[in-house]
C-alpha cells in the first residue's frame, strides 16, 4: 500500500493535527505515504468560480507528480478528493482538453497522461487495509463511543464523479467506526453541508447549517462527531463557539478527524494525534476510550 499523499492546504495550515495524525497512523496500517510537496492547492471548488481551467491545470500538475512515481493519490479531505476527482474526470474525458492543459505543464518538463486515480483515507481504510484487518489492529476499542459521522459534501456528491459510496445513504464512515469499536449514530444531517464555504459571505446561514448538524447529532446522543474533512472541521469545531449566536443553543460537541479516531483505537497517544489542539474540548472522548 503506497500512495502519493496530498494533505491539502488545511492539513498544512489551520488543522496541522490532521496531518500529524495521518502520518502517525500510516505506519501502523502498513500504509506508505509519499508526500507531494510540490502539489498546489486543489482549488477547493473556489478557483473554479473564477477560472475552471486554472484549477484543472493545478490538479493536472498534482496528477503528473503522482504519475511520475507510478502512484495514485490519497487525500485526507472531502473537499480535496471532490475537486481532484472532478478535474481528473474532465481531464480523462477529453484528450483535446488534456492537451490544452498539458501545454501549461510542459514548460517545467511535466505532462499528465490520465492514469492516476484519487482516493481518500476513508476508502483506503475500507478497500486497501480492509475492515477485518483494521478490526484486528485495534488495541484500544472505542467502547461503544457514540460517534456521529459527518461526511462532507464532496466526498459523496456528485456520485457521477465520486461513486465510492451511496451518495444518499452512505455507510463507509459507519463501518469504520464500528470496526474500531464505536457506535455510529444515524442522522439526517450526516450527508448535509457544514456551511463552511460561505462563512465569510453569509455567516448566519453558514453557522445555522453547522448548528443544525451538531444539534441533531447531539439530540440523538452523539458523544462526538467524526469527519473526514478538515473544512467541515473548521466550521464544526473551530467556529463552534460562534454558532450559538445564530441558533440560540450551545453544543459542547467534540469533533474528531477520522485519522484521530483511528489512532485512538490503534492505541496512539492522544497528544501525538493532536486531540488537545481542538477548540472544542475532546478530553471526555479521550478519557472515555483511554480510561479502559
Amino acid at each position, binding site marked *: 500500500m503506497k500512495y502519493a499523499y496530498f494533505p491539502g492546504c488545511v492539513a498544512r495550515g489551520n488543522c496541522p493535527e490532521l496531518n500529524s495524525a495521518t502520518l502517525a497512523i500510516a505506519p501502523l496500517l502498513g500504509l506508505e505515504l509519499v508526500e507531494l510537496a510540490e502539489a498546489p492547492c486543489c*482549488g477547493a471548488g473556489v478557483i473554479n468560480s*473564477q477560472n*475552471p481551467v486554472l484549477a484543472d491545470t493545478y490538479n493536472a500538475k498534482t496528477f503528473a507528480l503522482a504519475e511520475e512515481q507510478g502512484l495514485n493519490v490519497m487525500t485526507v479531505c472531502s473537499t480535496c478528493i471532490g475537486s481532484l476527482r472532478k478535474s481528473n474526470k474532465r481531464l480523462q474525458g477529453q484528450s483535446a482538453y488534456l492537451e490544452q492543459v498539458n501545454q501549461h505543464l510542459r514548460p517545467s518538463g511535466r505532462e499528465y497522461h490520465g492514469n492516476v486515480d484519487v482516493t481518500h483515507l476513508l476508502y483506503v481504510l475500507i478497500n486497501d487495509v480492509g475492515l477485518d484487518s483494521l478490526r484486528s489492529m485495534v488495541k484500544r476499542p472505542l467502547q461503544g463511543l457514540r460517534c456521529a459521522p459527518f461526511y462532507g459534501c464532496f466526498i459523496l456528491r456528485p*456520485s457521477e464523479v465520486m461513486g465510492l459510496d451511496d451518495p*444518499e445513504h452512505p455507510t463507509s464512515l459507519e463501518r469504520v467506526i464500528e470496526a474500531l469499536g464505536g457506535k455510529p449514530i444515524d442522522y439526517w444531517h450526516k450527508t448535509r453541508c457544514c456551511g463552511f464555504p460561505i462563512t465569510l459571505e453569509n455567516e448566519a446561514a453558514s453557522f445555522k447549517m453547522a448548528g443544525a448538524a451538531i444539534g441533531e447529532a447531539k439530540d440523538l446522543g452523539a458523544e462526538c462527531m467524526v469527519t473526514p474533512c478538515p473544512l467541515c472541521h473548521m466550521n464544526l469545531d473551530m*467556529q463552534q463557539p460562534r454558532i450559538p449566536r445564530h441558533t440560540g443553543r450551545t453544543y459542547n460537541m467534540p469533533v474528531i478527524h477520522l485519522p484521530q479516531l483511528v489512532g485512538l483505537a490503534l492505541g496512539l497517544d492522544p497528544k501525538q494525534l493532536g486531540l488537545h489542539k481542538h477548540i472544542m474540548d475532546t478530553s471526555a472522548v479521550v478519557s472515555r476510550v483511554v480510561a479502559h
Partner: protein
Amino acid sequence: MADIRFQVHRFNPETDEKPYYQEYQFTPLEGSTVLDCLNYIKWHLDDTLAYRMSCRSAICGSCAMRVNGHAKLVCQTQVKNVVRPDGTVRIDPVGNMPVLKDLIADMHGFWTKMQAVKPYLMPTQPPPSANQEYLQLPEAFRLFEEEATCIMCGACVSDCTSLESDKQFLGPAALAKAYRFSADTRDGRRHERLEELIERGGMWDCVRCNECVQTCPKTVAPMEAILKLRQMALKERLTDSIGARHVTVFTDIVGRRGILDERELPVRSLGFNPVKLLGMAPVALQSVLKGKIRPLEPPHKVKGVEDVQRIHREMEDGS
C-alpha cells in the same frame, strides 16, 4: 418481489394538528415505480391519500417527493431500488416548502423566486430580418442546452442546504434559470441580470454542497450553473462583494504561494469590515492559543512555488 411497508407522510390541514406517518403494506408488481405504488394505495387501499402526478414519464415535474429523505421523481424511481434493508420505503413531500396536504407541497415560494430572476429572454437586438429567426450557432446553443432541460419539479430546491438555513436564497432552480438566459446569445441584458444576482440571496450564497447536482432528475446540474454565473460576474468585473473577493483573493493567494494561507483570506475577503473582523477575533485568538493558527510563521508556500506562479501567470492572461 416481497411485501414492502410504505411509510407515507400524512397531513390533512382540515383534521390533523401535525403530520404523521401512515403505513401501507403490500407486494408491488415486478417493475413497479414508486408512483405505481402510490397509485396502488390510492386506488385500492386508501383514496384519501393526496399527491401530485401527471405525465408519469419524468417530464411534467409534478411528482417530486422525498423517498427515504431525498428528493426524486417518483414516476421514474423503481421501487426495488429504494427498499431499505428492513423492507420499508419512506415517502415525504419535498423539503424547503410548506406542506398543503399529505405529499403535496406549496410551490408558491418556488415560483416567486423563479419570477424574481426574470426568467425570460430579453433581447436588445432585432433578429436579422422580419421573417427569420435569430441565428445561434450550435456551440452557442450548447452553452445553455442542459440548463434548459429544467422541468421545475423543485427537487433541487427541496434538498438545497443553503435554503434550509437562509430563506432569502434564490435557490438552485431560479439561479440555473438565470444562468440559462445570461448564457443565451440572444439575450441583451446579461450585465443587468448579473448585477442583480450578485446581491444578497444570489449567486454567492450557494454553499456548493452539490445536493442539487445529485438530486436533479434531469441534466441541469444547478450548482454548476451557479459557478458559471460567478465566472461571468467576475469576467464582467462585478467584484464588489465578499463572495467575489473571496474567490479572487483565494485564487491570488494560491497563485502566489501554491497553497492557501487561511490567515490572509478572511482579512482580504471581508474588505474593510471591522465589525466582522472583530467578531472573528475571539475564535482566532483561541486558535492561536491552541496552536492551530500560527501568526508568526512565515507565509505558507509549496515547494517549487515558482512553477505554480508561472502557471497562474500564463492562465490569468485568459488562455
